[in-house]
């Protein structure tokens, strides 16, 4: 039996349920086993032993959000590359591919296509680089 193309997602589902259950059990145990002794100071946030000044819920630097946006753009672009990488050999072959060797004519279609696509990535990177959006607040 060879590696079937149709994936059986059952095991994956099992894994996900297992992962969540496992960590929840851990957490639940910890919640009930420990002693409890609360006081006002203990429930206050810890800030190096001083009284906190002001709230941590402030509108903090936009730089942090910029990184998130960049990530979104680049990661989605990168996500398009995965299927391309997986079928790159088939894309660049006008015949059948057996054992990684093309039996027909080799074409640069896949390669050029990727270059075009990737140039958008590079341009974007160059742009944010110039704009100094990469970095830290």
């Amino acid at each position, binding site marked *: 039996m060879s590696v079937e193309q149709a994936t059986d997602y059952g095991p994956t589902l099992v894994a996900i349920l297992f992962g969540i259950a496992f960590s929840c059990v851990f957490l639940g145990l910890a919640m009930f086993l420990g002693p409890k002794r609360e006081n006002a100071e203990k429930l206050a946030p810890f*800030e*190096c032993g001083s*009284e906190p*000044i002001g709230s941590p819920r*402030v509108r903090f630097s936009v730089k942090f959000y910029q990184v998130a946006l960049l990530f979104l753009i680049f990661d989605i672009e990168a996500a398009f590359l995965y299927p391309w990488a997986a079928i790159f050999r088939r894309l660049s072959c006008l015949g059948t591919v057996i054992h990684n060797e093309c039996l027909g004519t080799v074409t640069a279609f896949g390669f050029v296509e990727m270059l075009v696509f990737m140039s958008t990535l590079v341009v974007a990177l160059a742009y944010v680089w110039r704009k100094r959006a990469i970095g830290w*607040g």
Partner: protein
Amino acid sequence: MSTTTQSKTGSKKLALGMPTPEEITAGGIPGISARPKLPPDLMAKLNNEELEEVEDIELPTEPMTINMGPSHPATHGTVRIILTIDGETVRDSDVQVGYLHRCFEKEAEAATYTQVFPYTDRLNYVSPLLNNVGFALAVEKLLGIVDRLPERASYIRVIVGEISRITDHLTCLGASAMEVGGFTPFLWMIKVREWLWELLEELTGARLTHSYVRIGGVAQDLPEHFIEKLRAVLEKSVEVLGECESLLVKNRIFRDRMDGVGTISAEDAIAWGWTGPCLRSTGVPYDVRKDHPYLVYDRFEFDVPVGSVGDNYDRVAVRLEEIRQSMRILDQACKQIPAGPVLLDEPRICMPPKNAVYNTIESMIGHFKLIVDGIKVPPGEVYSYTEGGNGELGFYIVSDGSGRPYRCHVRAPSFIHTQALSKLILGAGIADIIPTFGLINMIGGECDR
């Protein structure tokens, strides 16, 4: 139970003359113009203007005020920095010291001159013997016996002082390395420090708080084979230092953390009163041992390492080089040290030898008088300075002729260096505070006294 003084505190705050904007912008004063203490609304305005200058388009962000310390891993429990940050950039900071104010100066006024030595040990507790020597020299200057000190005692003072300097720098560098994540070199440096401490323990009887130096000399002569052991330890240490260097200064990540961070110009450093390795990192070769030689420092060949930029890397490199130079001094001192007494033969100042106390009534009486009344120091005032681990360590002593100092003030380099901290970290990131603070080498005992 907090006392009910809260209500009274409000009135104690003084209404202060705020500097006018002209004064601030005139900026003829290096350093102080950088961070005037302004009312919060004006400060916020200034900050926002700064922001607009730096970045072209920027959404307004709220600055966050955060307490760094007193019990923060990087602040060693003795300093509190109230940071106003925008993202991770420090926009304003208020450095508060005094968490380790142990009232050295008040305690010294109540103690005899001999009893002050244990207190001086705990000033800069990383290099206690340098403080011992500094205090002893101050009192000796007041007594007028500096030139009569036994030569061997002076050499011993140099030797223990330089060992202390090495341990001081090792601790400073090691702790800084640890705080930027290099735990292994830290432990290796502490390993070397341990070897040096073992030597000092053999000599003085204690690992860290030696109270070894006495007015008029030192308490005990070198034990047997001390010089040989010292040589062997130094040899071993050089090897370990090389390894630490390959993990730190040669490592690009460490360099990146240090290069260009906490930079201060020579003019500013002088205006802020910096001395010692911190001042030398800016390129000013001021070293008390060279400029105003005391003890027998004028008999040794050694170089004053200076930096060129005045950033954290220079402070690391200067300290590393100073360790080497101290080793050079030690090597020469070991060769030159003469035989002889280690304490001045002066019954009104120094304790008589023990068997004289056991056997002669005069010595016994002198012994009692020295302990009960202390050493009688003629009235007057004196400022004496030596090169401590962190810079010019000065003792300003006022005597009223009794056996206890009337006033004993320490010019603590740490205290003076820490002042400039909030200028150094202005505009830097939180991550930069740690090495900058570490390499200023603020020692709580010395800073807060």
